């Protein structure tokens, strides 16, 4: 049996660990609220943008030249992996990394063998993982989460879009955690570029339900309908990218909150057991001492 002193030491250390996990849970909860605020703040912009995009493209004849929709043979692949900068968030990071590995081993195994799959990592965890594995990672977009805003994310989105338009990559996939609720994150693997045709009409259908009368308005378009649509597509793409990062950020804090909650509970259990052991050991020591004294007295009397 462990000595009293050892058990006491363990109780102290588990206690301080519990304090840390409790504090981390609280911090994660506060940050989660902030990241959810960010998602809500983005909403009016997205609604308006999609509304205008639907409105303009609904009355548009013919196709718009769209460099972001160019289908090419998938030879060079870019995978955008959104993880977090910090760990201690349960399976949050390993889930997305697992999904990316899955993608590598199945869909893009041929491209991987030729070394044509590159990574752009938002968040340090994914970057560290693929650097260690020796796969090529491009761009340096780490530390965005300290003060997350559209301005911070925009350069990353623009970088990806430019690389696609310049034919450095034929396909861009984006992998991130979607926030469902505090305890649940859903890993999403989405084709980001080229834009699939269904992406645009979806916004259209949503808009028809909301404001059907809007279509009767005769707008003046400046410079022209086509130019506006061509201008709107990259804007909408950037927003999609930002949405992914925001979702991932909210998920991260949710996952950390749950993980830390569990850790606090575990520490509590452990403390209970340790206290029991401590008391038992102490009692055993006392009993032993009494026996010795009684034994000694008996010997003297004898």
């Amino acid at each position, binding site marked *: 049996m462990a000595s009293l002193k050892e058990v006491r030491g363990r109780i102290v250390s588990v206690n301080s660990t519990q304090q840390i996990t409790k504090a981390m849970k609280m911090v994660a909860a506060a940050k989660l609220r902030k990241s959810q605020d*960010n998602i809500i703040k983005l909403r009016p912009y997205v609604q*308006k943008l999609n509304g205008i995009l639907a409105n303009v493209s609904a009355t548009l004849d013919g196709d718009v030249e769209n460099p972001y929709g160019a289908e090419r043979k998938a030879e060079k692949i870019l995978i955008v992996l959104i993880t977090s900068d910090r760990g201690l968030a349960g399976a949050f990071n390993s889930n997305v990394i697992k999904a990316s590995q899955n993608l590598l081993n199945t869909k893009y195994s041929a491209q991987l063998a030729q070394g044509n799959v590159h990574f752009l990592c938002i968040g340090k965890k994914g970057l560290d993982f693929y650097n260690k594995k020796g796969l090529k990672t491009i761009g340096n977009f780490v530390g965005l989460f300290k003060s997350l805003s559209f301005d911070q994310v925009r350069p990353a989105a623009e970088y990806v879009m430019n690389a696609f338009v310049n034919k450095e990559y034929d396909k861009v996939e984006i992998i991130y955690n979607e926030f469902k609720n505090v305890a649940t994150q859903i890993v999403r693997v989405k084709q980001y570029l080229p834009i699939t045709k269904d992406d645009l009409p979806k916004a259209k259908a949503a808009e028809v339900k909301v404001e059907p009368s809007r279509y009767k308005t*005769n*707008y003046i378009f400046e410079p022209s309908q086509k*130019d506006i649509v061509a201008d709107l597509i990259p*804007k909408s793409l950037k927003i999609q990218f*930002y949405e992914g990062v925001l979702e991932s950020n909210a998920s991260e804090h949710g996952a950390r909150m749950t993980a830390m909650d569990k850790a606090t509970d575990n520490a509590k259990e452990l403390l209970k057991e340790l206290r029991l052991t401590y008391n038992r050991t102490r009692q055993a020591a006392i009993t032993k001492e009494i026996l010795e004294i009684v034994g000694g007295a008996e010997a003297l009397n004898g």
Partner: protein
Amino acid sequence: MHLEIITPDEKVFSGEVTAVNVPGADGAFEVLNNHAPIISTLAKGNVKVKSAGTEKNIMIDGGLVEVLNNKIIVLAEAVLS
């Protein structure tokens, strides 16, 4: 006339105005009361907001403007100030 300037991060401006000058992609133009419905892309430049004697400049980094029924909505990618 009601004006809203929105970026992905926040609502920069919301309120009643008398005139707005926006940096259209084909040159700046001014929107007064009862302007015809218009959708225009915006270049990087100044949005001049005039309301009851005061004037305010908001520098935007490109965007989009929609005018409909005396409601002006400016969607800006970013506000530079």
